[in-house]
């Protein structure tokens, strides 16, 4: 019960946010944070629920961003169509990439996906006639305004784009909840806990792993499209391996294999660099130390810890409230 009240409170807070903090800077950060939440939620599906760490999420985000931008600039598609189609481009790319790499497990898989991200990055930098290389793609249009009578939703305005991304995040959350709670989701968690046993029980694990990989990549591609049409300019830089690592950190910090942990983690990975406004170099060192400390002392991540804490406060002992528990 308390849980639903909390969820409603968070949603209400998110809707009220642009009216409470009217500074453009905070709204900008909130938009970026929500885009990263979508990426992190994607990483959570493959990493948290299936137990396979993919270091290619930023690369797939790049595929989504570039395909959506190119569809709207070069092919002249309406932006709405481009944003909705780009996850399918990402899905096809991840299907091709996932088939060979899912033949291996554990660290092998992580390293192969890392190489995959590097390949995507190299192509983005070097395929200059299409991607514009290092100098990037300027002039990406915002989604077309929606006019209902006298009322106009103009997506060039930050507030309006905020609500678009919020809606997209809500959609992604519903999708992920549906997948995780379905039979497929159960199989994915079975694979995480004991793949050999799942295989022995007659599950064709590779199909589920491939689905999980493609689904998580598609979410990253969707986030990439939202990012491209928000920034109006993209270059290869945000789609490098470093940012894939960021997505993994978001999942780990927040709590992997939980529905809300990645949201907390993604918000932190966007907010922390802004809060720690010391010199970039020192900030990253603090970041690294923080990471090591969290993993050693809070290995389940922040969200399960907070959930336990709140359960303690509200005196609930049944412990089946959050699916935080492995």
């Amino acid at each position: 019960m308390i849980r639903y009240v909390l969820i409603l409170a968070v949603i209400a807070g998110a809707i009220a946010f642009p009216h409470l903090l009217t500074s453009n800077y905070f709204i900008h950060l909130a938009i970026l944070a929500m885009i990263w939440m979508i990426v992190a939620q994607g990483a959570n599906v493959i990493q948290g629920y299936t137990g396979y760490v993919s270091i290619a999420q930023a690369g797939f985000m790049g595929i989504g961003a570039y395909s959506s931008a190119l569809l709207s600039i070069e092919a002249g598609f309406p932006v709405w169509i481009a944003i909705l189609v780009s996850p399918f481009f990402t899905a096809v790319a991840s299907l091709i990439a996932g088939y060979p790499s899912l033949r291996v497990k554990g660290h092998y898989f992580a390293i192969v996906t890392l190489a995959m991200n590097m390949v995507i990055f190299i192509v983005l930098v070097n395929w200059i006639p299409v991607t514009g290389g290092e100098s990037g793609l300027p002039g990406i249009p915002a989604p077309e305004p929606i006019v209902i009578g006298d009322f106009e939703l103009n997506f060039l305005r930050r507030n309006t784009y905020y609500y678009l991304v919020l809606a997209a995040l809500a959609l992604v959350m519903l999708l992920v909840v549906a997948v995780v709670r379905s039979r497929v989701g159960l199989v994915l968690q079975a694979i995480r806990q004991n793949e050999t046993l799942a295989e022995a029980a007659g599950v064709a694990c590779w199909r589920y792993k491939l689905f999980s990989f493609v689904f998580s990549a598609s979410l990253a591609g969707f986030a990439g499209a939202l990012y491209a049409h928000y920034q109006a300019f993209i270059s290869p830089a945000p789609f490098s391996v470093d940012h894939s690592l960021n997505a993994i950190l978001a999942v780990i910090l927040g709590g992997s294999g939980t529905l809300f942990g990645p949201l907390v983690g993604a918000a932190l990975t966007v907010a922390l660099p802004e809060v720690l406004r010391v010199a970039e170099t020192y900030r990253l060192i603090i970041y690294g130390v923080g990471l090591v400390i969290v993993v050693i002392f809070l290995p389940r991540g922040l969200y399960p810890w907070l959930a336990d804490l709140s359960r303690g406060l509200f005196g609930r002992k049944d412990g089946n409230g959050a699916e935080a528990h492995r």
Partner: protein
Amino acid sequence: MLVDLIQQLFNGLVIGSIYTLVALGLTIIFGILGIAHFAHGSVAMFGGYLTFFFIQSLGIGLFPSMALAMVAGALLGVILERVAYHPVRNAPPINAFIIALGLTLIIEKSNLILFGVDQVIIPTGFDRVFEIGGVTFPELRVYILVIAAVLVIALTILIQKTWMGMAVRAVAQNRPAAILMGINVDAVSMFVFGLSSALGVAAGVLVGALFAVAPGVSSGLVVKGFAVLILGGLGSIPGAIIGGLLLGVSETFATAFISSAYKDVIAFLLMIGVLLFKPEGLMRRSATR
């Protein structure tokens, strides 16, 4: 054409020998502890910077500086193992991987603070160039090959012939049994980290002499190291040697004959090809045998 081929083969072996040194450290650590030690490249760069610093400020020669840096690198490795990896040794492997990412950030940025942002080229004084039948052999590159070979042979003797090496192999083969036989696994872990880090530092120095020590080099180096591990098989020493040379040669051939911009893509395609057809790696046997 034949001259070209031999020239590229030589260049590839030189680069490949450096990849081998990086991969050897990674593969021993993986074989013993099951850790993907992502910070290895940053440790290598730390050693490269340190060697440059010793040469410049202490006025001692290249080889004493390199030896000192390797000792310092070994110490750093032992500290990393004790402080960061040891506490998560019984946690899921992903935790150690995240620790490795955190360590990479810390060491990489500490390098920037300690040694500045400029790239440095380690001075060697090996400027002569030999030429045999139209193929050029720069003195420095020949020495790199020799140094790498000496280190690989020394490592093999250490692992195969000494008591400590035997303990390392025992832990790699069967950890619980090794513990029951009274092997101090903690000591073996520290030893392995020290040894691997010293090898990594050597690789960093060679990179610094051949190209440059600079911010951003380390991640490329460590990813190549992991690519070698996939080619050769995780935890396999012969695999790391063969895989490293193979990666170096295929990379220089790709650069020379196909495209320099896409050379890394070709290296990774090779890796994916190996995964498709021989996913256990080219030389996979039980770890560090």
